[in-house]
């Protein structure tokens, strides 16, 4: 009889009360010895917990490094958005990291959408607004 072993846990983005807790699991033994791989794709990131974009930027600065994602680099109207994790891929060897977070906010109907109206008073809307961070 063959048995599979899994390592389960949570990846926490953010800190304190404002954080995203992402449930992850890794298969044991790994496909490549010595390298555990995490692949996460949110089913409905709009409905998940959201984090202020500033908090997310702080987390990125602390954990990935300064300048990777700077809140102030965003247009002013984007600095008040929230992020929702869409995908995450990391390998414990530390050589491959990718994540995509949606940027969005709650609309008048109180549902969270990954949309952004970049110009105040001008009805141009970007949908599927996403920040991709990738290790190179």
């Amino acid at each position, binding site marked *: 009889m063959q048995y599979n072993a899994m390592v389960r846990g949570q990846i926490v983005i953010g800190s304190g009360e404002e954080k995203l807790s992402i449930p992850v699991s890794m298969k044991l033994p790994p496909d490549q010895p010595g390298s555990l791989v995490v692949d996460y794709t949110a089913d409905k990131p709009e409905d998940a917990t959201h984090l202020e974009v500033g908090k997310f930027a702080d987390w990125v600065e602390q954990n990935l490094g300064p300048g990777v994602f700077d809140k102030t680099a965003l247009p002013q109207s984007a600095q008040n958005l929230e992020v929702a994790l869409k995908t995450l891929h990391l390998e414990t*060897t*530390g050589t491959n990291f990718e994540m995509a977070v949606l940027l969005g906010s709650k609309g008048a109907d109180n549902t969270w959408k990954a949309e952004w109206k970049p110009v105040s008073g001008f009805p141009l809307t*970007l949908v599927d607004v996403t*920040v991709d961070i*990738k290790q190179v």
Partner: protein
Amino acid sequence: MLLSISNKSSSIPSFVSRLRGTVRLGAAEFNLKADLPVHEGAALSGANSSPLSFKHAISDLVELTDFSPQLPGDFPDLFFEEDTLRITVSPGGALLSGTAAGEWKNPFGVLKGLTLRNFQLNYSSANRTLGLAVDAEFGSARPKGRLLFDRGKLRIVAVTLDEINLGSILAKSLGIVWGPLNALILRVRDPAEPIRFYYCDGPAYAGYEEGFRVDQAAIEIAGHRAEVALSAAGGTATLAGRFLSDIDLGFLRLSAADDSRMGPALSVDEAERALRLDAGITFLGERLGTSTVAARPPSANGYELRGEIRATTDVLVFKTPDFIFTWSKAKGFHVDTWAMPDFPFDLSFVELLNKVPMRSACGPFSSEMVKQSIHTRFDLKARIDSGPESALRFTLNGRYRIFVDQDEVVSGQLPPNLTLLLKPDEFNFTALANGIRDAIHGSATALVQQLVDPTFPERSTQFLGALLVQPLPEEVANLIRCRGWSVAGPVPTSGPDPAASATSEREGEATPDRYARELRRRGMTAQQAASLIAGVYPALGPADLISLLRRHYPETVGTPLLMLWALDRAGVPRESAAQAFLTRTPDVKDAAFSAAVKTVDPHPRVEQTVKHLQRLQTSGLQAARQLKAAFPTFSATQIGYLLLVHFSQTVPDARAMGTALRGMGANYRQVRTAIYDLFPVLSPAEVEAVARSCFQGGP
């Protein structure tokens, strides 16, 4: 678990981040991206991922701003090909830019001849004015253009030009021909504001006037710039504008009719095919009211300015100046005729009489001999042309009139073509009046010499009789006699004094004989004396006059021509003269008589031609040529006769006549014959000498 990223090689990992999103416009998706980090704010940018209808894109764009798109019916179907319309979102706002291919000919059906291509959309959330830049083609010009929307409606198509030929716009877009005005070049009025050639659909918008219009243009007339605008409506075009300053030619200034600080206003006179300037006229420093001046661009032969100066009041001694002028840069200023009636200038006749050359020493006239209430007036016609060094050349012709006690006693032609130059520092009426006086004064000696010319004794008689205090003292009569001049009236021993006549009649001698003898003694020919005799003795009939002339002037009435000439001078009707001559000369040769009649009594058409040439103030030489050309069968004698009788100012003697005949092509023999026929007092040797002198000095 906490995430901590590191790698086994312990080197610091590096990351890239990117922001992306999608915009949907006109059924096309735009995938916008921006690489992070950036130092000055992210700018997302992306293009259409599929072809996009221009109309759909415009529709969505204007609908974004709650307006309904309205494009004219002739607007073409245009497409933004894939990846040709770009949307950029930056901290400054949203910007759409891209180029749609295709072309729009004759936009709105109004801007005929214009083709638009490469519709370049450039829309910014910052000003939210929907506009398109376009490349345009108009004839050989490749201007840039723009399309402007007003709340979704395409209102304006405009192209900008640095310069354009007016005729090109009129012909291509309006189907109009304005003749010489077609050559006008429209240029920018301000380097920062090129010419606009546009159509505005509906009321004025965004600085554009309603309808078809070409504005922000300037033209140059007479070296002066005027701002103009061309508009068209209902098949009628209008060009209107205003000069930026007065048109100042120095002697002539055209200003605004209403004295505003701008120059004259202009419009188009389609009938004249010229620009019409409503101008205030200042000529030689005097404001002479307003006038309409026609203006045209330079051409080979035409004028650039043409107008009428019509003063309503006198200016100094000039009676209500009224004349038509033209001006062009090539030919300068020109006035064909400026009539200057009644120009006052009193001549000093004592001084002038004393200046007339004398054959022998005679004493001078003095002021007491001349009546005091003598005035001279001149009816002048001035021609004006541009002269050297920016001067104006006035050429004067006309008549003089001499008044005694306000009665006109003598009149006549001035020597032709008196000339004066008015220099730029003399462009005023005072200087002009002085110049005319100087010109007249310079010719006055010749004028008086002409008046006392013994060749025309009746004129001399009339002049001196009116000028000199009457009755003539013996001293004055001697002065006249000494000079060989003629004067009528009771001149002792020189006229038919009634008392003396009575005595003579008692002594058995008829008075006309005595008078004829006296006139001959003064050196007159029969032709010169005949009119005086007939004037004093009007009762003499043709037969008696023929007898009288034959008795006293046999040398100068020896041919039928000479006799008929004398009778003509005496005022004898031509038919009566011929009849009397034939009666008293039955043996006359037919050919000689016929030739004489043809000469003295030419066809009315000949007389008409002569009068025409006189009106033109043609010189004797020119008259000879034109008479010969008009009547090629005429002999040298016939033409010589016409010159002596009708052009005596320039053909006063045998040599002048011979020279004129030679100039018209007569040979030596013909000239000699004419002199022989018409100057009987000359001996054969003198005739030969004069004829030879006419052929000396070149062909």
